[in-house]
């Protein structure tokens, strides 16, 4: 299957700590996108990283992409209670009409 797999499935940390979530996939991609979802709500786009990029930053977020290992990681630094949410990676594969394949997600809990 093409789908991305994420780990860990759940992560619980204290406010101020860093959170790292990983995503792996199986076939060549155009890009990989990270989304956040608060419980029962919509998907908020965080970062898009293209297949020819290795690292991107946005505020407290850092995303890396290793196409040789077919994996990506999302690092949230200095976490806050408001970062509590589910985080999903979504991969855009070649010649797939732009469809995104989502992973199962990592449920992050940041305790104040």
């Amino acid at each position, binding site marked *: 299957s093409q789908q991305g797999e994420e780990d860990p499935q759940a992560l619980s940390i204290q406010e101020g700590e860093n959170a790292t979530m990983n995503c792996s996939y199986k076939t060549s991609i155009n*890009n990989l*996108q990270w989304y956040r979802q608060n419980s029962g709500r*919509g998907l908020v786009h965080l970062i*898009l990283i293209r297949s020819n990029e290795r690292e991107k930053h946005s505020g407290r977020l850092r995303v890396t992409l290793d196409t040789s290992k077919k994996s990506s990681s999302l690092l949230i630094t200095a976490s806050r209670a408001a970062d509590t949410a589910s985080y999903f990676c979504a991969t*855009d594969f070649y010649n797939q009409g*732009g469809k*995104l394949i*989502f992973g199962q*997600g990592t449920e992050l809990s940041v305790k104040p």
Partner: protein
Amino acid sequence: EPEVTQTPSHQVTQMGQEVILRCVPISNHLYFYWYRQILGQKVEFLVSFYNNEISEKSEIFDDQFSVERPDGSNFTLKIRSTKLEDSAMYFCASSGNYRATDTQYFGPGTRLTVL
């Protein structure tokens, strides 16, 4: 900031009834998508749409489903005869240009409950 909007936020229907879920994509976007998320499961692709045609569809998107862009702003998903297993959150998304591997922006979703 432009955003994707969806109506209604929650739709309750009886099994066998037709439902139409509505979306207003970001105004200058060209590519439109529907996804769904069954409670507790991951987000699944249903269909992509460009230039008044379906670009790609998943196995889920069978003959009971159809999409339409009836005017310059709306994008709809119709389920002809709903089943219990159609209960899910349905998300609309749009992007400027998927060939340029552009970001897909998602709406807040419509929660469909089939009784």
